[in-house]
């Protein structure tokens, strides 16, 4: 226990907290709170959070001349489990949210197909669907941690261009087969119906494997900001590939080299050369509790918990350090792992009041381990980093305040 700076076995946590719970229950039986007598509020058509819970998306940043072109982040540190509520899923729009009338929207399957055709929203609702729990992460997520100085921000502000939902939709393969795609083709181009007409090239083999035309998110029709009436979803890949407000899928030979996949979502290195089509998001994790800008009120046992995910497959294991990476202890993975499905990891930790640095390090089923910040930045050109997946470090000061730190 000494060696791991207070990280404990999970069983110790469950035994250790039992006394605290019973003490609280005894104190509570002496009072009569107002809600224990008389009628409460009636039912509602569409629920909302408790008035005591205020949740909001963070870091809502738009272009100075175009506030609708920007991003907002999921408040990861306020949530638990793995799913992101639809109202808090991160956003990235290049030209705002189009207000699409589904009766006037069509999805076209075009290009190298025998039978170019288009589908209405109501048509697609009749097609066989699949449901999968998947993350979407913006390729620019955690960009702030590539800067020279560590910014004192929350877990969500730093890493919240990442969300997870149960997505339901039609396997894209079905629609491509119905149109009779030319098997000698090797790429698609997907295009959105927003004013930006966002378009990205997608390798055909990737699309045939498990891409879907998503119509539902966590059980309800897509929100406008997530692509209503329909979006492409390419599991495990950078979020920009999952084109929202999907209107066209063109089968072709070779990528189109659209503006987003040349000028923007490419990885420039110090030697002046760039990687293109580095589509999969690399293995990553972040401790959400305790995390940036929180304060530990007193010494004692805390549950350290967070999220881990990989675009190369499933999460195999997550190790946690409380001493800045000198020693590591295996965390418990409590949710069901699966390809491109985030997990929640947990480990108990006794804070004795000494300064500490909390870190998590994930490994995936493809054999990748999350790198340190220094390792992740080794070859990147300054200030132009996409796909950053370095270990997030949270410093716990003697006062109990938690802040982002670079080691």
């Amino acid at each position, binding site marked *: 226990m000494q060696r791991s700076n207070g990280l404990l076995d999970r069983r110790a946590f469950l035994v250790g907290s039992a006394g605290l719970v019973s003490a609280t229950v005894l104190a509570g039986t002496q009072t009569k709170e107002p809600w224990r007598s008389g009628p409460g509020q009636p039912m509602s058509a569409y629920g909302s959070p408790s008035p005591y819970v205020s949740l909001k998306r963070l870091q809502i940043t738009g272009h100075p001349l175009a506030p609708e072109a920007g991003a907002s982040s999921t408040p990861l540190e306020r949530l638990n489990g793995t799913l992101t509520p639809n109202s808090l899923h991160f956003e990235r729009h290049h030209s705002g949210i189009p207000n699409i009338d589904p009766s006037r929207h069509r999805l076209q399957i*075009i290009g190298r197909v025998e039978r170019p055709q288009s*589908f209405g929203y109501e048509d697609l609702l009749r097609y066989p669907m699949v449901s999968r729990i998947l993350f979407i992460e913006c390729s620019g997520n955690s960009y702030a941690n590539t800067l020279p100085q560590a910014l004192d921000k929350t877990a969500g502000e730093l890493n919240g261009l990442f969300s997870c939902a149960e997505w339901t939709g039609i396997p894209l393969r079905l629609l491509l087969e119905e149109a009779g795609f030319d098997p000698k083709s090797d790429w698609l181009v997907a295009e959105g119906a927003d004013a930006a007409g966002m378009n990205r090239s997608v390798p055909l083999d990737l699309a045939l494997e498990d891409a879907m035309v998503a119509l539902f998110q966590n059980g309800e029709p897509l929100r406008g900001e997530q692509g209503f009436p329909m979006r492409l979803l390419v599991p495990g890949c950078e979020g920009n590939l999952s084109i929202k407000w999907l209107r066209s899928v063109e089968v*072709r030979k070779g990528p189109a*080299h659209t503006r987003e996949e040349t000028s923007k979502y490419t990885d420039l290195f110090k030697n*002046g050369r*760039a990687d*293109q089509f580095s589509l999969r998001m690399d293995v990553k994790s972040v401790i959400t509790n305790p995390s940036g800008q929180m304060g530990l009120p007193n010494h004692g046992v805390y549950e350290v918990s967070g999220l881990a995910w990989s675009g190369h497959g499933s999460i195999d294991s997550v190790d946690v350090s409380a001493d800045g990476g000198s020693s590591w202890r295996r965390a418990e993975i409590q949710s069901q792992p699966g390809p491109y499905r985030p997990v929640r990891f947990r480990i108990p930790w006794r804070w004795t009041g000494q300064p500490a640095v909390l870190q998590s390090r994930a490994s995936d089923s493809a054999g990748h381990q999350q790198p340190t910040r220094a390792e992740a930045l080794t070859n990147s050109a300054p200030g132009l980093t996409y796909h950053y997946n370095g270990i997030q470090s949270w410093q716990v000061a003697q006062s109990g305040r938690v802040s982002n730190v670079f080691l």
Partner: protein
Amino acid sequence: MSFCSQLAVLFFMLQLPSVMADALAPQLGKPISTDLVAGIGPDGQGLPRGAGSVSEGRIVYEAHCLVCHGPEGKMPGNALAGGRGSLATDRPNKTVGSYWPYATTLFDYINRAMPYGNEKLLSANEVYGVSAYVLFLNGILDDDESLDANALRAVVMPNREGFQNVYSVKSSD
């Protein structure tokens, strides 16, 4: 079993696979025209007829683009020009001229996404012209040149060889 009903059974069995496929696929797509694209790539497929010169493009640029991109396309944050030779330095400046591998991307992007707030406004001739002007600002075209589909496709961008397609590398490994 009569010969006719034997034939009917045989016919049914032969038809079975496609009947089943039809039964599982709603087949609700409506036929559409065959020449549509979702993005114009280096082969130029989908480029419309028309042409525009650098000087025609300058007029379009000054009317619709200058406010965000600056008089020489060097507005910080929205830079279109400059930055040649900067990619391997401490201050890489990714612009059309210093970074973009293909000129066809200019037509595709301007045509679909510009001018910001008034997208799909420009005619094909205007898009060819303003693409030519942006290439002129980068020293890639001279001021007396113009672009049509063939000329645009033939432009060799300075950073054409600057990228490695790592998806293909991974699949062939």
